[in-house]
């Protein structure tokens, strides 16, 4: 018999096997999840959750899909958090400090409490990436925030009302579009395709018999 632990889902007591994740514990308890369940593997941020272990003062943030239950864990899921998402035209904005001041001025009200970083379910240095955003250092902000799954637990803990994931989203798009080095070989290839350079080759492949294609495929050279 597997070792059982006591968990309190929204305050209600259940006994569940200790090997389960919080999400599996909810299903073990009989929940049919609709909200708060997405990729079930730490990529989509649907299952933001806060919990406290009885006797512990610290409130922790996690993803329910990838956090194991602990004994005397009090759990509340946070399947939606009202983040502020400002609308902008990616073709019109410029990657300067100005745009953050305009769209997300609350980032300059950061009090440096670091609650966002402590709450991050991905272990990111959230306060640091907000600092980069404040300074218009979007490349650094993009790199530091890259693994963000936009679950919103950081924002739930922020006394300044910052929507960190949306700030980082803007920084990454600015970096990807305007600051990252331009790829010339991609332009060249698109031009060649538009000029019809590969049409004869592809058409000749499409006209071949299966046997001819098998021969070509099985003897093709593979780049080392």
């Amino acid at each position, binding site marked *: 018999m597997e070792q059982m632990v006591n968990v309190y889902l929204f305050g209600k007591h259940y006994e569940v096997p200790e090997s389960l994740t919080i999400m599996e514990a909810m299903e073990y308890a009989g929940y*049919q999840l609709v909200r708060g369940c997405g990729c079930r593997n730490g990529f989509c941020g649907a299952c933001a959750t806060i919990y406290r272990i009885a006797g512990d003062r610290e409130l922790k943030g996690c993803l329910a899909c990838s956090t194991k239950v602990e004994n005397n864990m009090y759990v509340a899921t946070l399947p939606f958090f009202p983040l502020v998402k400002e609308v902008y035209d990616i073709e019109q904005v410029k990657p300067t400090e100005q745009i953050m001041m305009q769209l997300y001025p609350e980032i300059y009200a950061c009090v440096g409490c670091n609650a966002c970083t402590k709450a991050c379910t991905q272990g990111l240095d959230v306060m640091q990436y907000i600092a980069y955003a404040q300074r218009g250092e979007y490349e650094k902000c993009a790199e530091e925030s890259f693994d963000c799954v936009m679950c919103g637990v950081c924002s739930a803990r922020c006394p300044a009302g910052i929507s960190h994931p949306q700030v980082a989203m803007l920084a990454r798009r600015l970096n990807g579009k305007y600051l990252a080095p331009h790829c010339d070989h991609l332009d060249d290839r698109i031009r060649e395709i538009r000029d019809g350079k590969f049409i004869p080759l592809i058409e000749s492949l499409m006209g071949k018999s299966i046997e001819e294609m098998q021969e070509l495929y099985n003897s093709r050279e593979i780049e080392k």
Partner: protein
Amino acid sequence: MYLDPVIQASAEKVAAARAENVKLDPRRMTAEEKDQLLRTYHPDYREDQFQILQAGPNRGDKVPHELADLLQARSRVIPGDIDLTRADYDVDVLVIGGGGAGTSAAIEAHEAGASVMVVTKLRMGDANTMMAEGGIQAADKPNDSPAQHFLDAYGGGHFAAQKDLLSKLVTEAPEAIAWLSGLGVEFDKAPDGTMITTHGGGTSRKRMHAAKDYSGAEIMRTLRDEALNREIPVVDFTAAMELVLDENGRCAGAVLMNMETRQLKLARARTVILATGGAGRLHYQGFPTSNHYGATADGLILGYRAGARLLYADTLQYHPTGAAFPAQIFGALVTEKVRSVGAMLINANGEAFMNPLETRDVSAASIIRECSDRGNGVKTPAGSAVWLDTPMIELKHGKGAIEKRIPAMMRMFGKYGIDIRVDPILVYPTLHYQNGGLHISADGQTDVENLFAAGEVVGGIHGRNRLMGNSLLDIIVFGRSAGRNAAQKSRSVQPGTLTLDHVERFHQALEEAGVHTGHLSPKLLPTYNSLGKDF
């Protein structure tokens, strides 16, 4: 360090052999060896796992039991439940599904000036796109060409792909990358802007573009942000329950259901795009899956009932490297990029038993053979597995390479105390992708007029096996194209009278065929609660 002594003893053999194994480049299998291997070990060849459809457009074709049960189930919508003369939503283009294909389609339909609405049964971005890790293919390097890409994909798919679709896929690939770059997607690049590209299983050129190992997540969150910037209406937590047709049999909208209140709504549209994704959560043959919670084949069911034919619905992709240990991540995807950047597949005795970059179906079959008849698997609590020797990556590329190139994998295993820089990881095939799906023509339209489809719900682009990196590519190429074409088509559509008569006719066909599955479909969500109650 593994606590299980048997696993740890085997891990030590892998570590001891690493310095020699890392120098190897195991030969590729011959075509004959691959055929024999697939026939003997690939799950698609287990005849007892399939049945013949008795009704509908694919009557006489075989599909997995689990899919047949839903394709031949009765509708969840009872006639009379909804008034078809009063639409709650009225748009030019209705997009069903909020993943990569649906969102790309919505953006392009909007760009083309159509009024467009997205409905999704969970949230926009809750999709397999978000979980695609490894990358996206495009032949944009000087030593490569779309023709070479075509050859790799056509051969890898066992010469079964629908050629016009595959030609479109490879020809429009570079443009797809440029479009994503222009939206701000952060591809891995060298300081001079050259794309950092690697091999995937079955590629003959290094054309896998990536955004670390969050490639799909980076693409999905950017597309979602763009759709929100355009203020395209997204009706979330709302599932499509049935397509509605007009009196001439053309698609003209859908019956929707709020997933929380279960209230039915009617959406009327001039054209409809089905972009509902795959079916991993049907757990074919009892396999675990790498798929999203909502991957329950809904689009196949809706399209089929409305008269759309399926292509290759009997071929599934089992990703060779699903996590086999620990239990909490059983079946989760271990991206093929781990092999692209240098990790090899090693058996329980520390032997490199195959070239790690064979195509997915061949790799999966080879791992199943190693764990079954050959008896070279590592015994795990859930069954048997082989090693993916991750520490090799840093032997080849230096310290720090794992954190830089595959941070998501490092985090996924790190949460359970496994440091993939130090210890190898245990893998076994996991249900990953639906190779087959709705048949479309090159404009993205199904056999039902005004019903378009894009993404994993489509069959035929990849033939009977898909290469890594061609799915993120197909959702962008065919998603965009469906959006543009559906918008264009919507301009000439004269709205008609809405009907669900096709559902009635389908029910009659089931009766005549004597099929009684006892199920209702679409399934919408898997049944994981301990009470065993379906959603």
